[in-house]
């Protein structure tokens, strides 16, 4: 794990890792002909910052009772989680080429019965926050010091269960709980703010009693600062991360066709050029 605050070398290392993860995702989507590439690319920097600077985890002991928990609640984008887990040693990077293959340990939607490091099956949206609240509360009941992070999508915030949890967590004084919303402004069929009244997402979390921060979800310095900033001991933190769906390849960015499309081999090569990777 990189120390905080990041020095220029560590920052450059994380930025390179983000680009490499993105190319890996684009390649995996091409090979598996799988959907949800846009939403996977938008949350890469959040995961790189969390795993690179914040989470107290040991890939050799993925079930350590004292580990920090990351509940990846936007399960459709799990290729991003798989790639970051592999890069942090939870399983061999070579295994990523079997993403979404029948019989592999890397299904298109996550399951804790597959590769180590996946905490929960979140193919159905709106479950992760409640589960994360339970994990954070267990830390208090059992007096075991660990933190819980829940990564959610903006479309997911249309589920009523999210706001049931949002209303309870401050009352439980869960200062060890952080919710991160990957606010890429799109959902399956349209602009999230046109499908439902999403704005102001930050004000909504604040109104529910959370410490709330807005960040550029592709700026690793901003994300890590939000993750590490001093916070009240008994108040949960919500980070609303403004992101671009499909971030990393110009022809994917902010084009919602990539909610379901997968790239051709030529498009993988074009992305490689744009990401300046060999």
């Amino acid at each position, binding site marked *: 794990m990189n120390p905080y605050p990041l020095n220029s070398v560590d920052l450059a290392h994380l930025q390179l890792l983000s680009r490499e993860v993105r190319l890996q995702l684009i390649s995996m989507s091409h090979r598996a002909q799988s959907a949800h590439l846009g939403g996977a690319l938008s949350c890469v920097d959040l995961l790189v910052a969390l795993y690179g600077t914040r989470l107290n985890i040991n890939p050799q002991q993925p079930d350590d009772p004292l580990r920090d928990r990351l509940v990846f609640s936007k399960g459709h984008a799990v290729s991003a989680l798989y790639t970051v887990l592999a890069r942090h040693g939870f399983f061999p990077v070579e295994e990523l080429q079997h993403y979404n293959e029948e019989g592999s340990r890397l299904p298109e939607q996550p399951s804790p019965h597959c590769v180590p490091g996946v905490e929960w099956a979140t193919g159905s949206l709106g479950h992760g*926050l*409640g*589960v994360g609240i339970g994990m*954070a509360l267990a830390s208090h009941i059992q007096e075991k010091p660990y933190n819980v992070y829940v990564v959610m999508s903006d479309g997911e915030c249309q589920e009523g*269960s999210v706001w*049931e949890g949002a209303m309870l967590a401050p009352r439980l004084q869960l200062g060890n709980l952080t919710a991160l919303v990957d606010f890429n402004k799109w959902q399956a069929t349209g602009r999230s703010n046109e499908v439902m009244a999403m704005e102001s997402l930050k004000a909504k979390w604040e109104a529910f009693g959370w410490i709330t921060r807005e960040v550029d979800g592709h700026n690793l310095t901003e994300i890590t600062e939000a993750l590490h900033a001093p916070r009240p001991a008994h108040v949960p933190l919500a980070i609303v991360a403004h992101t671009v769906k499909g971030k990393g390849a110009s022809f994917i960015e902010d084009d919602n066709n990539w909610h379901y499309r997968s790239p051709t081999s030529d498009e993988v090569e074009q992305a490689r050029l744009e990401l300046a990777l060999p």
Partner: protein
Amino acid sequence: MRNAFAEEITRLGSADPRLVMLSADIGNRLFDKFKAMHPTRFYNCGVAEANMISLAAGLASCGLRPVCYTITPFITARCFEQIRVDICYHQMPVMIVGTGSGLSYAGLGATHHSLEDMALLRSLPGMRVLAPSDSMELRSCLRTAFAGEGATYIRIGKKGEPVLCAEPPGFTFGTWRQVRTGAEVALLSTGNMLPSALATADLLAAHGITPTVYSCASVKPLDTATLARVFAECETVVTLEEHGLIGGFGSAVAEWLVDRELPPKARLLRFGTGDHFLHHPGEQEHARQAYGLTPAAIAQAVQATLTPAY
């Protein structure tokens, strides 16, 4: 049953620090003793059942043993997907307890009737479904369920039901309790229908028929040994439940029956609520009458199936 539930949970919670009690804003004063004894292990999760179930699964994933409690339709139908995914798929040892099951809250209208809960919960892989007949059997169910692993749904009544057992009778998953011995008819009663089953047996006895009566608290798994025996020995096997006929206890018995290789000797009769809502006000007995769930109606129907000797 509610008071017995609170007492037994308090007792279990004192013996095992993993027990965490979750309520969806119900049970005012009911859990005062539990709260006083275990202040860090009782949480009112608010009128927010879906989140309560996910939260319980999160607690269980960290080694705790949550018990979730509220009114039956709200803790089964409303949050069914959270139960399915977060508890059952993840194989979390969570106990779900619904109060006011069946027609216990008949007077509050169809919103508070729960005549589909066993059908819903029974369909979930790994979920055990229990319907104890009285507060003593409930205590035994709670002890057994909490001692084991896995997810369990327990449907209970309200308060003031007749207590038929002098003490907790003991409970084993997949085993039914014989409460009356007889011959040509077997009355298989689940949940709070046991007093009606006994009253039905008394009515039949007046006609020279001596039914065997079982309290079938274990709806899933079924007691298949007892089923095999009564269907081989009796002329008529009767299921009784304060639940819909689609997917409930009687359906489970019928499924078992058609999957058998041997043809049964006995005919199966199922008694439960019909495929319609009640729209008129009325308390539990009124609602049972409206659905034809009275000892007189059941006894008459059973008698009609028997050979003329009866």
